[in-house]
Structure formats: structure tokens, C-alpha cells
């Protein structure tokens, strides 16, 4: 209770309350994430249970009764008669899961490597940061596709569809750690110069404890900012890969897969199959991004 009270009285919450953009994007993000998490409860249909599908329901327009069956679908149906609203909810689950897991992987990897580079210095630092530089000189999506291709090559064919999501997480996570490593390294090098670090060494703390117990808590703010912005980027990266057909399989479609499927129908008049998943992706990425921007301005006014 006390912590909650303290939080509500904090400058952080005050800044949040006074920034309409932050409040609105926070609400949108929370609604989207909650509805994805609660998809099995909210969704009127299970789009991946073939037993509930009726081909006769195919190409129903949004909010209009189907010509054959008379059923009405909130956001219409696709060619197979799947409810677009339900597929979006389930698709968002996949997108968000991949996004969060990939950011978590990138965060753990990037923070560890960044801290190590900052604390060890010298050759270790040079090697880690040159790898990061080399990776940065390729577009992240290319790196992700490369890792995706290699991983796909070494997984047995009958496992591919099950493994696809994990491979996706791995490839986005590995292509995104550089941001974390750079920011953490920079922030940790500033912290390392401060006298409390010297004091900790003086009372007998080892380098590992100094790095993780003293320095890490003081760079968390910048990590949080990068994590939020990375989440938006990871969701988009996942959608891009899936759109290109190298991401989530059609049996487990993410928002990107839905957009790929939908774009085939755009010019034949069934606009809703593309429009609603694309809008959802836009709202999701935009709200998370705006939230990240606000976080950056609030927590870290000196960052560019």
C-alpha cells in the first residue's frame, strides 16, 4: 500500500498524468495487450479449430449478415470463413509473445555483454563492441533473416512449424542486442567513474558484485527506455518477417501473417481482411513507441 502511495505521489507518475499522449498510448497498449492475453475468453470463435469453421461464411463483410448463413461478424471473415476479429486477437498473442520474448533475450544478452565490456575494458571491450559495430552495419532484418535461415536449416523438417516461433524469437533477439549493449556500456562507463564504485571496491567488493549490484541498478532507467522502444521494433520486425513468409506459419498466424494473407484480397474488394490486422499492428507499435518516447524524456532527459 505504501509503495503504491509513494508511486502515486512520485514525479514519475505526475509527469505521466500530465502527458496526454502517454496516458492515451498507455491505455491503448494495455487494452491491446489484455485482449491478446484474454483472447480465448474474448474471441467469439476459435479460428484454428477446423470444426467450428464454415466455408459458407467466407468473405462476410464487417457488421453485415452473411448472404448464405445469415451470421454476422464484427470485422468480417476471410476466405476460409474465419472471424477476422478472432484471428486478430490470436494473432496479436503470437506477435506480442514473440516481441516480449525477443526483447527479453536481447536485453539479457545486451546488458550482460555491455556491462562486461564497460567493466573489463581493453581487449574484451574492443572485441565485443567491434562485433556490435559489424552487426550494426547490416540491416537488422537481414541479420534476422540470416539467423532464421540457418536455424531453419538445422531443425528437422517435421519440427519446423513447432520451432518456427522460437526461431523467430532467437533471430529477432540476436539482431537486437546491440542497442542494449551500446547503451548499457555507455551508461556503465559513466557510472564506473563515480566515487561510490570506488568506495565499493575499497570495502572489498569484487568486480562482479560491483557490476551487478552497484552499477546495474543505476543504468536500469536507460535499459527500460531501450526495452520499450525495442518492443515496438521487435513487433514490427516479427510482422515484417511473417509478411515475407519466413516468420510465423499459417497454422499459428501472427499479425504479419494475417497482413500477408490479407493483401491478396485487397484489390478484389475484401479490404477488411487486410485493413483490420494492419490497423491493429499500427496501433500496437505506435502506442508502445509513444510510451517509449515519453519514458525516455522523463527518465533520461539527457539522452539524445
Amino acid at each position, binding site marked *: 500500500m505504501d509503495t503504491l502511495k509513494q508511486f502515486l505521489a512520485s514525479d514519475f507518475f505526475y509527469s505521466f498524468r500530465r502527458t496526454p499522449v502517454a496516458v492515451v498510448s498507455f491505455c491503448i497498449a494495455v487494452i491491446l495487450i489484455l485482449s491478446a492475453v484474454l483472447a480465448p475468453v474474448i474471441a467469439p470463435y476459435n479460428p484454428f479449430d477446423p470444426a467450428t469453421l464454415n466455408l459458407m461464411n467466407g468473405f462476410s463483410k464487417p457488421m453485415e449478415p452473411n448472404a448464405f448463413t445469415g451470421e454476422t461478424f464484427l470485422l468480417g471473415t476471410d476466405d476460409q470463413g474465419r472471424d477476422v476479429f478472432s484471428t486478430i486477437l490470436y494473432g496479436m498473442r503470437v506477435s506480442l509473445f514473440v516481441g516480449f520474448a525477443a526483447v527479453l533475450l536481447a536485453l539479457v544478452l545486451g546488458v550482460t555483454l555491455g556491462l562486461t565490456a564497460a567493466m573489463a575494458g581493453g581487449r574484451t571491450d574492443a572485441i565485443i563492441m567491434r562485433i556490435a559495430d559489424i552487426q550494426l552495419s547490416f540491416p537488422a532484418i537481414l541479420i534476422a533473416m540470416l539467423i532464421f535461415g540457418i536455424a531453419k536449416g538445422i531443425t528437422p523438417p517435421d519440427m519446423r512449424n513447432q520451432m518456427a516461433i522460437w526461431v523467430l524469437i532467437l533471430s529477432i533477439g540476436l539482431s537486437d542486442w546491440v542497442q542494449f549493449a551500446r547503451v548499457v556500456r555507455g551508461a556503465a562507463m559513466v557510472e564506473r567513474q563515480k566515487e561510490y564504485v*570506488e*568506495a565499493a571496491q575499497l*570495502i572489498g567488493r569484487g568486480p562482479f558484485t560491483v557490476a551487478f549490484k552497484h552499477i546495474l541498478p*543505476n543504468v536500469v532507467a536507460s535499459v527500460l527506455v531501450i526495452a520499450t522502444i525495442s518492443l515496438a521494433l521487435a513487433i514490427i520486425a516479427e510482422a515484417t518477417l511473417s509478411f515475407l513468409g519466413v516468420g510465423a506459419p499459417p497454422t499459428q498466424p501472427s499479425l504479419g501473417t494475417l497482413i500477408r494473407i490479407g493483401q491478396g484480397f485487397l484489390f478484389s474488394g475484401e479490404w477488411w481482411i487486410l485493413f483490420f490486422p494492419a490497423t491493429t499492428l499500427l496501433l500496437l507499435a505506435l502506442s508502445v513507441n509513444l510510451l517509449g518516447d515519453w519514458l525516455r524524456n522523463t527518465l533520461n532527459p539527457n539522452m539524445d
Partner: protein
Amino acid sequence: MAMLDIKDLTIEYPDRHGVFQATKNVNLTVNRGEILGIVGESGAGKSTIGNAVMGLLQSPGRIGQGEVYLDETRLDTLPFEDMRKLRGKKIAMIFQDPMTSLNPLETVESQLVETIELHLKLGSAGARARAVSLLDQVGIPDPEQRISQYPHEFSGGMRQRVVIALALAAEPDVIIADEPTTALDVSIQAQILDLIRDLCREKNVGMILVTHDMGVISQTADRVAVMYRGKLVEIGDTKQITQNPQHEYTKALISAVPPSNMRIDRFQHVGFGKEGGGLKEFDLNNHWLGQGRSDEKGDAAILQIKDLNKVFKSTSGFLGSKGVETHAVRDVSFEVSTGQTFGIVGESGSGKSTIARLITGIHKPTSGQVVFEGLDLLARPKSRQDLLTKRQIQMIFQDPYSSLNPRMRVENIVAEPIIVNNLAGSRAEAISIARDLLQLVELDDTAGRRFPHAFSGGQRQRISIARALASRPRFLICDEPTSALDVSIQAQILNLLKDLQARLNLTLLFISHDLPVMRQMCDQIAVMRYGEIVETGDAEGIFVAPQHSYTQDLISLMPKFERLG
């Protein structure tokens, strides 16, 4: 009627918690040719007054109440455009840091001529002639040549002279000088102050001189206004204020200035606005802190330094391209006796802080010996006892804002050394010892539960001392422990260090550039320059009869604030 008349001025900074009043009902006047000093400690509101007169209050600051008159013109209600025309022409400003108050991309000539042409209709030849004569007046040699140079071609003191020339450019009635010499070396400070005083007389300009330094005020100002927490507590002639202050705060402030001409045992009258509550009665013999401590006294050297050298190599690039070598410490030897205070004095870059870090093991020396209680500190510790002995050397740092981990509660910061070194039975016991230590350094009972940001600089320095004590040290290195603090807080911290030293039989290594402070604290002093010790000796001996020419220079240039009795 006075030329500049500030009536009942209240400056407010509204924020979400309410309205903070930076100054409260301040009344001041400045006459032509007069220097009014405003003195006070950080947060007293002294700079805010200058900014309000200039119409340069930082948003959301505003004038809540009061009036500012320059001759017949009321300044505080003047529209922005009209005020802009007055700035530079009627009121000019001299800033603290000449490194940042000149535009580095333009020559001195173009900066001066721009100001002159803006305010005086002289034409370009006339403006240039005036610029040259201004540089001449502020004592820049060879002004015809130097005027076409860029700011980086001038030294710090010369740059401040250029800033003064800029302030004088349009013949203003009032100049506001905000800490004009704080960023300068002591020797240059004296010259700049002389110049400012002479120019005010000569040009019949009124000046507000804002500073925290009693020495600067006593040498320069005609009248002094003393501010405390936004209030004007006392105003009067400089001589009267410095010799015979009336208000309790002024008395406390003056008694906190370390006298340069003698050694006093303790700073007296530091009670005004005191942050601690007096040393708690502590039965040291039965307390954790008193255990495991030997009470031997005597002249036995606790620390011996022999032929210490440190060369820093800057390497850069992936393959470690050849770097530059800096000889930071060169053949330094000295001994520190148990229970004494050994001082190292020197200007910045003289290697005094490097010596501290060579003793604590943060840096490894290139060659030499460091022996503490018979233990060679440079050898690998052979036993746990050796490690514990090594940790009996602790340090108090210069910057209280970076020496405490902002993410840890104060009691955890203080308890950490006890826990790391297993000096107590349990974590709970360590925390309870930490709370005792916080009381010992005169912080209140609730201090331990809070985070460092809830404390002022002086209180943080107390926390830093408590943390050092938690290693049960016998040897404390104080690296400029008070240079970031206000003078009254400095006096309290120095008193605390002296008290703790006496009660715990601590040996201190005191590092500072501030000679009057050294005189109060040290038994022995080593004077350093360019990494070498030029003179070592008894502290009073160094001050009364310095042998080396460098020491003589330092002593003659030190700011003099002498006390009569």
C-alpha cells in the same frame, strides 16, 4: 534616491507541491560607484536577485511581489522588448565561467564591436577604436593585436578580462557580477577583483557582486548584504559586517571561515542552521566500533611510503597504438605517525589524489613501496587477516553527490562493509550497527531508511564518513572532503572529523588545495607540484617559514581572511 532600488522583492518558483519562495521581501539599494556584495550559501537566493534585475528569471520563476527601479524606470513590469534594449546598455552582467560566456567561434573584436554598435551609434571605425580602448582599460597588453584573436587564445584570467570589457562596452549604469572569480586560480582572482573595484570607481558604475566567498567580499565590496534561505538577514558596511556582525547567522558564517593566519582548535558558533545534533554519547569500549581496536599511541609510523612512482600510459585503438606517458607521481616518500593528520597540498594535477588511490589499491604503482602497519600493501594478501588489515584504510571522497549509490538505502550503504567483511554475526546486527554509526555522525534516527537524494551535501558527507567507519578503519584518507560544501557545512564536517579522530585514535591523510583548511587540520604537511613533493614539514613551520620558493608563492597567494582574536 539610489540608482538601483529593489523594494520588497519576492521571487517565486511555483511547482506541483506549491510555491517555493527563492527570495522573501528583499530590500536593496545600489548607488553609483558603489559595490554591493551579496553573500550567502548555496540556495540562499543570491543569484536569483541578479537574474530578476536582468529580467532573466528561468521559467517558471516569477516576481511574486515587489518592485525594481533603475533611476526612474520600473524594471519588473517592463515589456520584454524594452527590457531587451536595456540589457547590455543600462545593466550588464559578468558571469562565473569565462570558458562558456564567450562565443568560441567569433573573435573578441566581433563580439565587442557587435555589442558596441548595438547600443552606441558609433559607426564601425569608432566601435573598433572603442573596443581597443576597452581592452586596454581592462589590462590586456597589446590590445591592437589581441583584439583579432579568438577566445581560446586567451588564458582564463585574460578571458574574464574580456568578459568585463564586454560588460563595460555600452557604458552601463549597473553591472551584476555573479561569482566572477570562482572559476579562476587564487592568484588571478586577486588581480580581477582589483580591476573590478578600480573600474567601478573610475566609471562611476554601481555593482552587485554575488559570491559565497567571504574573502572576496571583504577585499572588494563597500557594503555587504547577507542572505540566508531567501531572506536578507543583515546589511551594512563591509567593515562592520566582517568585524562586528550583528545577526546570529552572519556570526556563524564568519566564524566558519577557516582563518589563514592561525590554527584554531575547533570552529565555534556553528550552531546556526546546523545539520547534525551533536556527537551522541557512545560507550565506545562496549560498542562494536570500539572492539578489535588497539589503543596504542605514539610516534610509530602507521604508514610508510617509499620511492613511489606512477606512470599512466594512455593506450588507444584496437591494436593498442602507442600512447602518451604521464608521470603522475615521481619518487614520493613519506611517513605518517599513528593518530596524526598528514596533509598533502598542491594545485590540481599535482598528483595528490593519485597518491590516495595508490595507497588504497585502486591504482597499481609503477614502482615503490607502501607499508601499512608493517604489511606490504602491494604484495598479494596472504591471509584473511591481511585483507582485513588492508580494509582498515578507508576513504572519504570529494563529491558527496557521486560517492553514495543513489539506488541503495542509507542503512544498507553503511552496513555493506560490515556484511562484506563478516564483521557482524548477522545481517540484522549489521543494520543495527549501521544505525548506531549514523547516530555517531549526528544524523537522526530515520536517516537509515531513506535514499541518498533526501540528504544535503553535508549530510551525505556524514553518511560517507559513517560508511568509512563501518570497516573499523584505523586510517582515513580524506580527499578534498569539504571542497564541494558550503563554508558553514565545511566547518561542521571538519569539527566532526577532529572529534572522531580524537575518540577513535584515527590517523588521517588529508588531501586539499585549500591552505587555510590545511592549517586547521594538519600536523604534518607535504607540498606537491608536478607529481613531486617539494617540501615536507611540521604544519605550523610550513605556514610560518616556508623553505621552498613554490611553497612561499602558494602561501603568499592564499586568500586572506584573517581573524583578530
